[in-house]
């Protein structure tokens, strides 16, 4: 066993990188769920974003355009979900699952010719003098832009939900869609917008995996990250800053287990690899036990809305 390679600044830096994909997806899904819609298609949207972003970035040579393409691709996919659940009034759980199954197939279809390629390197923050501050600079200030974008998104969603009229309406739609409808708000339109936002965020998260974190394209590379994002929303009790904590905790566990693997700890590799999933389950149990059921969940979450009476 060799722990001498453990470096706190590097650990924090890689923790942030490991957490960013799930954070992006989770903050998007959080908005969707606050609007009362449960989209279980996060995994499918993430992997679609991963390949769309990868393809665009490779073909244009610009990681920035790659992220834009990823967001657009997943947004289109999420609109399929919106079509099913909001206009065709289909069951949200089944529709979300179908989105995941479809997205996994679609991504591997698009991705056939991209295996083994290297994406262009994402631009990194480098402020002369400041990014080189010992420890602090290495840990926090030398990341690529998406890490900061994800943090800004968390702050933005928090402010939107807490301080703006739009956020209030969104929450009203999620808590009681019949009342919101009676007040004259367009429940369906608002939900479709929320779903589209969630799709775009999931796409960014997926692209972050294929363009920065790995960076490569392999089939099924999200490996459950979308589902973990869903779990993080529950962990966060539907609150943005707690989602940040959840994602970073998850990132920390991932980085730790990878470092243990690299250091050759006398524990089977598979046991370490399953640890993030097991710990996610344990955290879910603790959270559910404490909040005694779905106390913190938006009251209309997953319920069908039909105004035609």
């Amino acid at each position, binding site marked *: 066993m060799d722990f001498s390679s453990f470096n706190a600044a590097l650990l924090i830096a890689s923790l942030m990188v490991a957490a960013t994909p799930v954070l992006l997806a989770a903050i998007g899904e959080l908005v969707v769920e606050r609007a009362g819609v449960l989209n*279980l298609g996060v995994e499918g949207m993430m992997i679609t974003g991963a390949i769309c972003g990868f393809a665009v970035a490779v073909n244009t040579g610009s990681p920035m355009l790659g992220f834009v393409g990823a967001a657009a691709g997943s947004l289109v996919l999420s609109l*399929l979900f919106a*079509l*099913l659940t909001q206009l*065709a*009034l*289909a*069951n949200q*759980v*089944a*529709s979300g*699952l*179908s989105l995941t*199954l*479809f*997205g*996994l*197939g*679609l991504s*591997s*279809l698009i*991705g*056939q010719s991209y295996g083994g390629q290297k994406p262009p390197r994402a631009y990194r923050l480098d402020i002369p003098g400041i990014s080189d501050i010992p420890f602090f600079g290495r840990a926090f200030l030398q990341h690529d832009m998406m890490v900061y974008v994800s943090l800004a998104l968390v702050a933005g969603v928090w402010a939107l939900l807490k301080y703006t009229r739009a956020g209030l309406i969104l929450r009203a739609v999620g808590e009681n869609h019949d009342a919101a409808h009676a007040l*004259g708000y367009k429940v369906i339109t608002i939900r479709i917008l929320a779903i589209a936002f969630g799709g775009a965020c999931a796409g960014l998260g997926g692209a972050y995996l294929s363009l920065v974190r790995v960076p490569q394209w392999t*089939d099924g590379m999200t*490996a*459950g990250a979308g*589902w*973990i994002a*869903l*779990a993080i929303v*529950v962990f966060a009790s539907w609150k943005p800053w707690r989602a940040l904590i959840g994602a970073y905790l998850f990132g920390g566990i991932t980085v730790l287990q990878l470092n243990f693997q690299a250091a050759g700890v006398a524990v*089977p*590799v*598979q*046991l370490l*690899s*399953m640890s993030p*999933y*097991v710990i*996610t*389950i344990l955290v*879910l*149990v603790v959270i*559910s*036990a404490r909040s*005694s*059921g*779905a106390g913190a969940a938006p009251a209309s979450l997953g319920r069908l809305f*039909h*105004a*035609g*009476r």
Partner: protein
Amino acid sequence: MIKLEKRRQPSQAWSYATPVLAVLATMFFGGLLFAFLGESPFAAIKTIFWDPLFSEFSFYYRPQLMVKAAPLVLIAVGLSLGFKAGIWNIGAEGQYILGAICGAAVGLALYPLDAWYVFPLMVIAGALGGMLWALIPALLKVRFGTNEILVSLMLVYVAEQLLASMALGPLRNPEGYGFPGSRNLDEYPSATSWILEDAGIHWGTVAALLAVVFAFVLLTRHMTGFHIRLTGDAPRAARFAGVNPGRLTVFSLGLSGLFAGLAGLFEVAGPAGQITIDFNSGYGFTAIIVAFLGRLNPIGILLAGFLLALTYIGGEIAQNQLGLPAAAIQVFQGMLLFFLLAFDLLTNYRIRLTLRETA
């Protein structure tokens, strides 16, 4: 303006028609996809849906069809009972893996003992393995209110890691020169699940048919089946009628896990033959499509299972003969569920044209 009017009761006629419509729409849009990939859509659709059944080589494909359909039907029947009651086990893939691991472990432990009870013991172990794995989300839900969707799915990834460690560790073939993967159960007559290998029939086929009959009787003739249907249609009414939601959760998750575990065991003791790192092939997820396409009805699931098996086999033929990518079939299967859910609108709602929007 188009207005949707909720039907008092779901339309019986449409509920039979929508799966057919969904298949036709999938064929059409799938054809477009194949055309986009540079294949003749007609040739591709014919290769997928016609050749496995009626071409000159169909004698070779039909047994494979049976092999693919058995686990799909067996798993989907189990899932459908929970889905009907709004209990979502989407981790059948993990339960399938655990069934295979536990069943194979018993068989491998008894190797090379030649006795009639080897295979029955393996069946019991496989069923228990799948059931216990599914009882984890069930008990967590009942005790702590944890979301069963997320837990059952997380356990798929745990099961995959477990599978890898088993294939590399305890279950590795001692005579395999250190390669990962267990001893091949094909060479162990007491442990094989084949009945008629040439016809593609093994004990999993029998189990799938029994499961269909069992679910049919349960849903139409038994109190538990009534409780399942009642909980799905009217959860509040069900509670007033004395349905215990916790018991129903444990029952439907446990049963679907048991079926998935059995499917895994029959697969490992027959068609697959051995535990390998990538033993599982997504049956647990495809079975979700099968369950919905079969309208959560046992007979419907039997038909849907064969249809999805057809897309697997036809897809393989299209892959070999036309060079169609394997992922195209996955997209095709995903599309099927999409269209089914969309067309279900017609089952539950009536579409009316009105002149003005009434808010």
